[in-house]
C-alpha cells in the first residue's frame, strides 16, 4: 500500500492510477474492481458506465498537463477525487490546472498530485489547492516522507494569494508603516 500525504499527515492509500499503455483504447479498456484514478479520456469514453463508481467514491479522474480542466466542469459535482499528473516535476502546468479546478470551477473534492511529484515542491502543491500528494511508489522511504512533512510549512506567510490562502499578505495582515 502506498504512502500519501493528506492534510499534512501520512496515510496508507490503495488508490491506483490507470495509465493507458501503447495501443490501449480509452473506450474499451477495462477498469477493474478497486479504487482507480482513470485518465480523462477513459472517463469521457465510459462515463455512463463509470458514473456510479465515481459517485460511490471509488473512481477518480486524472488530468494530464495538456487537458483543459473545463472539460470536467459538468462532472465535478459527482467526482470525489480528481488528480493532476506531473509527467516531470519541472512541468508546471499542473499548478495552473489545480488553481483553475479550485478557484475557477469550484471543485471541492479531493485534489491529488500524482506522477513525478517531489518533496521540494510539496509546498507549492498545497498552495495551489492539492490536498493529497501521492509520490510514486518507492520514491521515498517512510522516514523521508515523515521528514518532508516539515517542508509543507517552509514559508509561514507567503506574499501572494493562492488557492490555500486567497488573500495576499497585504490583505491578511496589517504591515508596519515606517515610523
Amino acid at each position, binding site marked *: 500500500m502506498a504512502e500519501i500525504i493528506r492534510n499534512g499527515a501520512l496515510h496508507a492509500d490503495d488508490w491506483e492510477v490507470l495509465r493507458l499503455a501503447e495501443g490501449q483504447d480509452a473506450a474499451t479498456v477495462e477498469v477493474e474492481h478497486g479504487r482507480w484514478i482513470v485518465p480523462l479520456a477513459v472517463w469521457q469514453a465510459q462515463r455512463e458506465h463509470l458514473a456510479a463508481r465515481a459517485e460511490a467514491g471509488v473512481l477518480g479522474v486524472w488530468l494530464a498537463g495538456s487537458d483543459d480542466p473545463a472539460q470536467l466542469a459538468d462532472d465535478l459535482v459527482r467526482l470525489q477525487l480528481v488528480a493532476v499528473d506531473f509527467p516531470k516535476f519541472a512541468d508546471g502546468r499542473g499548478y495552473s490546472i489545480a488553481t483553475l479546478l479550485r478557484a475557477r470551477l469550484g471543485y471541492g473534492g479531493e485534489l491529488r498530485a500524482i506522477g513525478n511529484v*517531489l518533496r521540494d515542491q510539496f509546498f507549492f502543491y498545497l498552495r495551489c489547492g492539492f490536498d493529497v500528494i501521492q509520490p510514486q511508489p518507492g520514491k521515498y522511504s517512510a522516514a523521508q516522507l515523515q521528514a518532508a512533512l516539515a517542508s509543507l510549512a517552509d*514559508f509561514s506567510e507567503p*506574499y501572494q494569494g493562492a488557492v490555500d490562502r486567497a488573500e495576499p499578505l497585504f490583505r491578511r495582515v496589517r504591515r508596519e508603516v515606517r515610523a
Partner: protein
Amino acid sequence: MYKYDEYDQRIVDERVAQFRDQTRRYLAGELSDDEFRPLRLQNGLYIQRHAPMLRVAIPYGNLRAAQLRKLAHIARTYDRGYAHFTTRQNVQFNWPKLEDVPEILAELATVQMHAIQTSGSCIRNVTSDPFAGVAGDEHIDPRPWGEIVRQWSTFHPEFAFLPRKFKIAVNGAAEDRAVIQAHDIGLDLKHDAAGRIGFRVLVGGGLGRTPIIGEEIAAFVPWQHILSYCEAILRVYNLHGRRDNLYKARIKILVKALGIEEFRRQVDAEFAHLKDGPATLTEAEVARVAQHFDDPEYAELPAADAGFAARKAENKPFAAWAKRNVRAHKRAGYASVVLSLKPTGVAPGDISAEQLERVAELAERYSFGEVRVTHEQNLVLADVRQADLFELWQQVRDARLATPNIGLLTDIISCPGGDFCNLANAKSIPIANAIQARFDDLDYLFDIGEIELNISGCMNACGHHHVGHIGVLGVDKNGEEWYQVTIGGSQGNHTALGKVIGPSFAAHEMPDVVESLISVYLELRHADERFIDTVRRVGAEPFKTRVYAERAARLEDERKVVNG
C-alpha cells in the same frame, strides 16, 4: 529604498533554512543532480566552468552601504576578492564553494538580500531605471512598483516551473532606461487622460537565440489591476508555452505563434475572471511600499553650484569626468554620478572587495548611503551635491572608478563569456579588453562620442549584443572561437535589433574591425551625429565594404610577411 519588515525578513530567513536542508540532502546523495538543479538555480546557483557561480538579486538595482560591505565581505571570505555586476542589475560571485552557499545566503539575509529566483524557469529579479526618483523626465517612480512585483512574484506557487525564464522590467520615465521592449513583460508606467496611474503593458520581448521586440498587449491597465493582469499573462503562458523545445519555450515564441491579437484575447479572457479578485492592489499597500522611496532630505541649493563650474574650468580631467559621468538631477544643486566599472583591462562589471567598501563609504558621505546598479554594469551615486563633486571625484579616481567613459566606446557591456560561463561559445572579456586597449586615448574616445558596444559570448545574449550600436556575438566554428558583428542595434525608446554585417572574425581581428567601423563613421558623420545616427542615415553598406576591404588588405599583408 525599501526596508524589510518582519514578514519580508521571515521569508528570506525561511528560504535560507530551506536551501540549507536541500543542499545537505544533495550532498548526502538524497537528491539527484536533476532534482537539485532547479532548486539551486532558483537560488541563483550555477555549476560553472571552474566552480559554482552564485547570482545574488539586487531588486531593481537598489543597494545600500551595509549591503555593499556585505558583498565585499562575501567576496573576500568565500570568493577571490571580487564580484561582478550583471546586465540585469544583479551581482555574481564566480568562485564560491557549493557547500558554502547556504552560509553565504544566511549572511546576505542579515542585510536584507537573497538570491531568490535569480535563475531557473521562474519569474526573475525585476529590473528598472537606475535613475528612478532622480531623473528629470520621470512621470512616475517605478521603484515601488518594482517592489510590489518582487513581492508578488517571490515563491509564486503557480509560476515556479514555467516553460522557461521570465523577466519583468518597469520604467516610469519618458526615456526607457530599463530595456522594457526586450523583456517578457515590460511595464511602462503612465497617466491616462484623467490623470490616473496605470501601465502600458508590453509582452513577448527578449533577446537570446530569437531576438524579438515586445509588442503592446494593453494600452492602459489601471494600477489596481496590474498584478491580476500579470497573473493572467503568466497563466496563459504557463499552460500553453512550449515545453518540448528549450529554444522555443520563451513567451515570445508563444506570442508569435498565436499572434498578438489571439494572445491578447486569451489573456483578456483570463483577466476577466481575475479582475477585482483578491490580488487587486489597495491604496494602503501601494502607499506603504511607496513611502520607502520618498525623497531623501534634500537641502535647498542654488540651481548651479559656482564652485563646481569653476573647478571644471580649471581642471580638464575633472571637466571630462563631469561631462561623461555626471548626470543632471531633478533637484537644484544636485547631480547623479556614474562610477565606471570599465577601466581598460578589467572585465566589464567587475569590482574588488576594496572598491565595494570604498563605494559604501562614498555613498554614506555623499549620497544618503544608497547606490544603484545599471544594466550597463556601472554603479550610480544618485543624489550628490554639485558642491561635493570635485572632492568626490578625487576619491573615486583614487579608487579607479572614475574612468570618464560612460556612454563611450570603452563603456562596453559584456557577459562573463567563455572564461567563466559553461554556455558560452567564445570568450567575451578578452575581446572587450582588447578593444578598450585600442581605444585607450581619451581625446580620440571623446571625438568618437556616444556609442554602445555590447558583447555576448553566445546567442543567449546576456551581453545584449542585438541592441548594441555595435554588437559582437561569440560563435563556435568547428571548435574555434569566432565573432559575428552587427551594427544598427539600439536600446531605449528606439529599440532596434542590429544587422549582421557579414562573415565572422577571429578574436585578434576585433580591434581592427571596430576601428574600421569607427573610421567610416568619422568620415561620414554630420555634425552632432552619433555613430548610430550615421548608421541609420547611410545604412550598413559603407561600413561593411570598409570592414571587409581592410580585412582583406590585412590578410594580404600577413601573407606577404609569412612568405618573406
